[in-house]
């Protein structure tokens, strides 16, 4: 079985992931809705995951996929906790706009 990357080229995956990652960053900066910010973070995570898998294929090695597996677990945990926090913030402040979250002030 030939390597699928022979037909696509690893660079294209890299470009795709970079663009995806940047879109994630863009979303974080662009939106104030905390939920969308979360989604953007997920996009970034996925961009990285995709790159892992691409390189896993490139190296013909399962390590990358294992890592993606763990990262998914962490992402799941993160989203669960993060959303719970958002919910409680929403209950307290009545809004989830990150502009309202200014308690980090020194």
């Amino acid at each position, binding site marked *: 079985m030939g390597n699928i990357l022979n037909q696509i080229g690893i660079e294209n995956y890299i470009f795709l992931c970079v663009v995806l990652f940047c879109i994630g960053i863009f979303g974080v900066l662009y939106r104030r809705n905390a939920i*969308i910010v979360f989604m953007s973070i997920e996009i970034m995570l996925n961009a990285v995951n995709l790159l892992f898998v691409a390189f896993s294929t490139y190296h013909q090695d399962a390590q990358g996929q294992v890592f993606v597996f763990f990262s998914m677990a962490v992402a799941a945990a993160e989203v669960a906790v993060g959303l719970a926090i958002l919910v409680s913030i929403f209950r307290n402040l009545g809004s989830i706009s990150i502009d309202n979250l200014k308690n980090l002030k020194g």
Partner: protein
Amino acid sequence: MIHIPDFAHATTVQIIFCFLAFITVATAFLTIFSRNPIHSAIYLVICFFSIAGHYLLLNAQFLAVVHIIVYSGAIMILFLFTIMLMNLNEQRDVHRPRITRLGAIVSFCLICIVLIAIFINSKPIVGEYDSTGEDFQSIKVLGKILLNEYMVPFEFASILLLVAMIGTVLLSKKEKLNK
């Protein structure tokens, strides 16, 4: 060095890749630009599916399946539930001031350029993509690796999930306890 797909002589795989990539990027953008969080969530689901398609394309079936289950299934449901719980709609989302948006676009372009420039500058040695022919990503193999080499992290992942669950429950319940 940037490999421009030659559409005239494109293989099926290449066409599929381009198609999937287009969907991924487009839906990612739509996720961000949608006014309505529900729409965002829907677009994100599509985005995740397309990424799962990439996984399949790379022959990582197990991951593709896990990805769909975890992301499209669990995480997105969580998102949707939260959105509905908060009853968010377009009106509640106030757009950021223009300067912020401009800044966001500028930094988006900047980081894109920087990352791509790095990649171009690094002159990667991409030789022939060798294929050992060995099976390295079937469920069987992955399972062996996970439960042998990565036994301890695997267990920690489960502990992490457990802790996350307890934390989530506590966080959500705290309000009620105070009342």
